[in-house]
């Protein structure tokens, strides 16, 4: 951070001397002030009002938040979000790790495999939600057709509570397993072969090397994937909205926090309440960020953020 060719030589006013640099970085900060920071502060202000977005704002103090705490629909959305996050993240990271270990071996067609595994991640989620909607369709979906062909009971994937959550979780798993596998693979490749050689010299078997060398050394990468999965899981919207509509399907079984916020603000035009839900989401996200931060700094003893080389 100290090697820079153009350090101050004469005590000229900084702005005069460094105006090109400030000009170069200014777009980000200007845009952040207008479309990032201001809206956040403004959203707190809106959440203290009753407002439909058009008429006059009516000050209600903390009433929106009071209502939020006793709103069963909100808590249903919170619980759905966490259940779906749990149902998707654990299998997703497990399969990703297995795929990464398989791909890490010296095998052919590695380039093709990586592209194939990554493809779900770059696809439009609206289109794929429509595809999954028909694959899991109760009446004509190929999954139920397969169950029927095997003379098993069909499952009401899109009309029952657990069916809906499973379908959404499957979509998340499908989309992000390959992505996480590629990241794990990069983590595996970053472990120098000397470490494995040393462990083999010491007579450690494959399983033991995996548990005692590979996993501990992958920890920072695993934490990265857990953090991104948490952020992604908390902001789940497109899958349930396209699959089930603005109310999250029967009994709101697929209603997530962000979908509920959208529902309240942009279909019921309750901007005040929508903003409070946004802030509730922020508090939950901050809580998770704090937990993750704790895990990172305690376990590895390194600072995760602000590592500016």
């Amino acid at each position, binding site marked *: 951070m100290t090697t820079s060719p153009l350090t101050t030589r004469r005590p000229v006013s900084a702005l005069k001397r460094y105006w090109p640099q400030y000009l170069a970085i200014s777009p*980000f900060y200007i845009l952040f002030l*207008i479309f990032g920071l201001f809206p956040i502060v403004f959203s707190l202000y809106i959440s203290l009002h009753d407002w439909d977005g058009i008429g006059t704002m009516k000050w209600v103090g903390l009433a929106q938040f009071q209502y939020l705490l006793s709103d069963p629909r909100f808590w249903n959305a919170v619980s759905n979000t966490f259940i779906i996050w749990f149902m998707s993240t654990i299998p997703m990271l497990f399969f990703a790790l297995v795929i990464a270990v398989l791909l890490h071996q010296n*095998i052919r067609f590695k380039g093709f495999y990586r592209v194939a595994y990554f*493809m779900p991640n770059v696809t439009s989620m609206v289109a794929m939600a429509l595809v999954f909607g028909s694959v899991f369709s109760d009446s*004509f979906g190929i999954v139920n057709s397969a169950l029927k062909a095997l003379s098993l009971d069909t499952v009401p994937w899109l009309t029952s509570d657990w069916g809906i959550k499973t379908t959404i979780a499957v979509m998340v798993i499908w989309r992000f397993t390959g992505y996480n596998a*590629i990241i794990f693979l990069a983590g595996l490749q970053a472990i120098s072969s000397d470490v494995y050689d040393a462990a083999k010299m010491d007579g450690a078997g494959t399983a033991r090397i995996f548990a005692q060398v590979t996993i501990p050394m992958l920890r*920072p990468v695993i934490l990265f994937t857990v953090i991104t999965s948490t952020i992604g899981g908390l902001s789940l919207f497109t899958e349930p909205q396209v699959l089930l509509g603005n109310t999250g399907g029967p009994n709101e079984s697929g209603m997530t926090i962000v979908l509920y916020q*959208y529902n309240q603000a942009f279909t019921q035009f309750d901007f005040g309440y929508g903003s409070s839900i946004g802030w509730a989401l922020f508090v939950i996200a901050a809580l998770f960020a704090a937990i993750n931060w704790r895990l990172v700094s305690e376990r590895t003893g390194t600072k995760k953020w602000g590592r500016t080389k």
Partner: protein
Amino acid sequence: MTTTQAKPLELQTPPRPSPPIDDAQARRDARALKQGRVARIVTHLAILVGVFLSIFPFYWLVVMATNTTAEIFGYPPKLIFGSHLFENVGHVLASIDLFGALGNTLFVALSCTVLVMFFDSLAAFAFAKFDFPFRRSLFAVLLATFMIPAQLSLVPNFVVMSQLGWIGSFQALIIPGAANAFGIFLLRQLASGAIPDELVEAARIDGAGFFRTYFLVAVPMLRGGLAFLGIFTFIGAWNDYVWPLIVLVDPKRQTLQVALSQLSSIYGTDYGMVMAGALISVVPLIGVFLIGSRHFIANIAAGAVKG
């Protein structure tokens, strides 16, 4: 194209058991040789199961887009491509302004991409290669903005847009994200290593100003990173759904994702048609990805490992 530029991780050596005798090692080697071929076949089979699951929805999308709705609804279902693609696409074109939506999406995605590439690399170059007052604190602010979930400001951002008179316009999709922390951070990491200080200094001595140096030295040397950021931004903008859904209030001026979602909610029962629309929205994206895939995947992975 290797992906491993990560900083060496700290070694946590397990407790050392006593060294094995050579006999055991030799036996293990012999066994390993025999098992090698079987193990390789099993590995490929396991990987192919995963590849099948990854690819199947795409295959199924094409199957549905090329068959009639009656065939899709039938039991047993048709498992192979049909011949009704053009018919289905024709239905899509008769129902929504598909080419309009395609053009809008292309315009928004390309504008976002160009602006992000330009502003991010400019800022990254300044942060990486120059010292100026408050550089560190400004960069810390930039990193902190990573942690703010975008969904927090859906409502107030909508209000800001309506104050600016941007509701229903494409500026609302392009301008707010025209410079982002992710790209600046990524390119800054690349620029610190890729652009030699001597070159920047030489350009200065030759009388080149900051912007001249940026165009003549920084841009050519950041080509790889810029290509990655471009593809990444393009895919993200192409797929963006919730924000266009909120801001683009005119049903006649939509992006592809929103148009597709409308198509399905209005004509939901005509599956062949809806899937033809979905296919059209997916194909350009897959194309962009496949063109830059090696590079793209390598960069995603490198970014994650660097943390």
